[in-house]
């Protein structure tokens, strides 16, 4: 099991895996709309996620306009502002990042990379997308109901979420909660598919410890999501009851603006525990696929095996496990029992160790590599910069007493944007530049790509790095305007204006990126089936883009791990996973044997 090296498998018994019965589309509708092919579902997921992500992007512009130029944009009221930040947060975290990594990348690459014809339950997989789409539509509908969408902050903390002092506390919050519940239903259908496909759908020879780290990252993230989302589901349902039926799960006795409400006996803290029991693993649901994908990007483009593959896998597992026992580090100043602080600070800082090891191993993969500075590699390097930056500020916020002055300030905003916004998005971009040729058969335009890279990377860093220092000064988050605060100098306003301008510029570069994706579809350079000379199975398909059933007549047989780059003695600097040892030309001085020490 723990054998990572390319020990020879000369003979793999045929017909160990039964051929899968595929549903074959008979009409345009079943081929492109109600489609059961994971690759089409992946693209449907991705396009929907990008579309709603654009809404999130525009919302971030609007909120930054208010923060950067508070006097200038009179059409933005406090109500609007709080609605912008709430919907921006929820859209980006759940409807964009989670959906894109798992529904998008997961659907496209799990079957291809493990050598399966499709997901194991294609019909449920199709349903998963359609339920997700309905969830998105319900979410968008909340912009058009009376009172608008909820403005309770993406954390939706009761009691204020369902009280009249909060914008969108009527229709908006109801639609938000319904949409979340639908999202979770849809995700669960997809998530079960990803997990079962990884466990049961792998082709012959594809042992777990030969899987690419991309699959490992998505797999562990999906397991986390399947275990974490139910907590949010329960919280959402209970809050719906509090709102619609007048129950008091989260509502204590309350006097609102001098008036006694009929609630009593509920606990606002209970919701926070439920929310963060979901919410912290959610960070890793976004981060782990990014970890996996970036490992592969670095390895392929440095022409070197990922350093410490086994450690990378176990670090993913360890981070995933630990992520379930750190949630209350979001609640150090929530008023919960203060002795929890000792436990959660300790677990939180322990998580830094496997995470740091992953960073070391990425960098050590570069060491003595043959680094091609392609666009995917540039994005991977930018990921390392932003992830290291965002990761170390996590050590501030995780260390309970350091969190006390920093929580609820711009420091927190800067931290989580750097670590779970910018860093994973850079990986998504890198992954798209990497796999676009396989998905479409064409290369993305290099010039537009370079522009997109430099503006996104440096722009995002210039946005979020300085914000940490505003938080350190004490500038609170979720403030419509600062007004007169004696400790805040005028220079803060100047910095905020600068950040707003950068936000608009970085946002514009995303428009260029989207244009590139559309333009290259028609005018891009024709792509080689394996333009980066990668080893993993998705590059070895007979057709590009891969056809229905992925692998032609016979499924590939896997003889080696995913990282045979620059193997001494081999003719090329890469050996695909499905190349049998007998075909590796040259004097194969099986390095596996040489390095057989344990």
């Amino acid at each position: 099991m723990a054998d990572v090296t390319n020990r020879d498998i000369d003979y793999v018994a045929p017909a160990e895996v039964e051929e899968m019965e595929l549903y074959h589309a008979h009409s345009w509708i079943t081929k492109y709309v109600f489609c059961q092919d994971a690759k089409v579902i992946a693209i449907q997921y991705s396009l929907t996620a990008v579309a709603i992500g654009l809404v999130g992007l525009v919302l971030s512009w609007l909120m930054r306009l208010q923060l950067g130029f508070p006097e200038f944009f009179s059409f933005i009221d406090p109500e609007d502002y709080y609605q912008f930040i709430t919907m921006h947060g929820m859209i980006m975290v759940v409807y964009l990042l989670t959906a894109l990594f798992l529904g998008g990348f997961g659907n496209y690459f799990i079957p291809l990379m493990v050598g399966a014809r499709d997901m194991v339950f294609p019909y449920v997989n199709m349903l998963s997308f359609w339920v997700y789409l309905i969830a998105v539509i319900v979410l968008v509908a909340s912009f058009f109901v009376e009172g608008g969408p909820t403005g309770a902050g993406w954390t939706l903390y009761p009691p204020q979420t369902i009280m009249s002092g909060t914008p969108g506390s009527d229709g908006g919050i109801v639609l938000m909660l319904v949409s979340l519940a639908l999202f979770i239903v849809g995700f669960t259908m997809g998530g079960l598919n990803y997990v079962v496909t990884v466990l049961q759908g792998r082709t012959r020879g594809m042992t777990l410890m030969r899987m690419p780290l991309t699959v490992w990252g998505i797999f562990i993230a999906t397991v986390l999501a399947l275990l974490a989302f139910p907590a949010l589901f329960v919280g959402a349902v209970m809050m719906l009851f509090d709102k619609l039926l007048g129950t008091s799960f989260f509502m204590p006795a309350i006097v609102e603006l001098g008036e006694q409400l009929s609630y009593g006996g509920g606990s606002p803290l209970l919701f926070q525990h439920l929310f963060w029991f979901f919410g912290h693993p959610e960070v890793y649901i976004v981060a782990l696929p990014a970890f996996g994908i970036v490992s592969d990007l670095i390895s392929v483009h440095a022409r070197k095996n990922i350093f410490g593959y086994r450690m990378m896998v176990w670090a993913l597992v360890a981070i995933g496990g630990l992520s379930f026992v750190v949630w209350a580090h979001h609640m150090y100043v929530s008023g919960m029992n203060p002795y929890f602080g000792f436990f959660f600070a300790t677990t939180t800082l322990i998580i830094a160790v496997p995470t740091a090891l992953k960073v070391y191993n990425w960098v050590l993969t570069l060491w003595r590599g043959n680094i091609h500075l392609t666009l995917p590699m540039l994005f991977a390097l930018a990921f390392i910069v932003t992830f290291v930056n965002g990761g170390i500020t996590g050590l501030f916020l995780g260390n309970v007493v350091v969190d006390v002055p920093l929580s609820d300030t711009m420091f927190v905003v800067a931290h989580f944007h750097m670590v779970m916004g910018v860093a994973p998005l850079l990986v998504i971009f890198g992954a798209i530049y990497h796999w676009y040729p396989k998905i479409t058969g064409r290369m993305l335009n290099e010039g537009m790509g370079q522009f997109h890279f430099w503006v996104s990377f440096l722009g995002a860093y210039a946005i979020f790095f300085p914000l940490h220092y505003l938080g350190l000064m004490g500038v609170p988050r979720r403030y419509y305007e600062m007004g007169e605060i004696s400790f805040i100098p005028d220079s803060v306003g100047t910095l905020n204006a600068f950040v707003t301008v950068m936000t608009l510029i970085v946002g514009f570069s995303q428009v260029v990126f989207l244009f590139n994706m559309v333009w290259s579809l028609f005018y891009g350079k024709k792509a080689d089936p394996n333009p980066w000379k990668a080893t993993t199975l998705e590059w070895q398909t007979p057709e590009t883009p891969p056809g229905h059933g992925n692998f032609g007549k016979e499924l590939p047989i896997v003889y080696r791990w995913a990282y045979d780059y620059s193997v001494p003695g081999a003719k090329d600097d890469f050996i695909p996973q499905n190349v049998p040892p007998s075909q590796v030309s040259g004097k194969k001085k099986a390095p596996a044997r040489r390095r057989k020490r344990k």
Partner: protein
Amino acid sequence: MIIAIVIILVVVGSVGFHLLSPWWWTPIASNWGYIDDTINLTFAITGAVFVAVLLFTAYCVIRFRAKKGHKAHYEPESAKLEIWLSVLTSIGVVAMLTPGLFVWYQFITVPDGADEFEVLGQQWLWSYRYPGKDGQLGKTDPRNVTADNPFGIDTADPAGQDDVLVQGEDLHLPLDRPVKFLLRSLDVLHDFYVPQFRAKMDMIPGMVTYFWITPTRTGTFDILCAELCGVGHHAMRGIVVIEEEGAYKKWLAEQPTFAQSLAKANAGARRVSNLSSDGSLR
């Protein structure tokens, strides 16, 4: 190649920004200098890691970028190196966590003899209650809240009658005396936050939360709400005045007790303003 230089510039720029930018924490006004020390320690350790990892990355990019005829080295793993790095990282983590937990223990352990008073949060204003001559705060329940009894004090509890109520005024606290803030909310979550104190804590309806500080310098500081509490969140402001004990005592003696304010209300003077008109967004 450009990317390597840019990474180096990002490192230099970030460190330079840290050292030279005008944005830094406000001068402290409480006993929590240890928190600042822990932050500085964390900056030092994580800053060193940040610089080391990224400069090494940049070095690798320069040294090992693709060249004709060059081939990468084949090395799947090195248990020795990985163990060594794990141990080193763990030492760094322990070095930050240990002092952090010690200071946290102090933070949650209120010294004997600390003065107690109460902060009451509601949308979107702050009110304060001191224990009065008997040194005890009266019992409260949100169900008791009326226009004449905005704190919801139990009228049957004798300890409540002499409680000193401060509404629509600045908060005053004496210098150099440890004080425990009892935090209560009537409606939604709030968070009593004075950056110069380095302490903050959420206020939750149905619960009493707390933190403690010893003010260490006189002055006037802004009170902010740090937990989103509705459309008026950003406007929920107050002022705390730290002053010498004499001045503080004089100020406190001028404030009405619960019994006095009730009597006035009963006399029809209705000095206690109606909450619904007062509570609207300013």
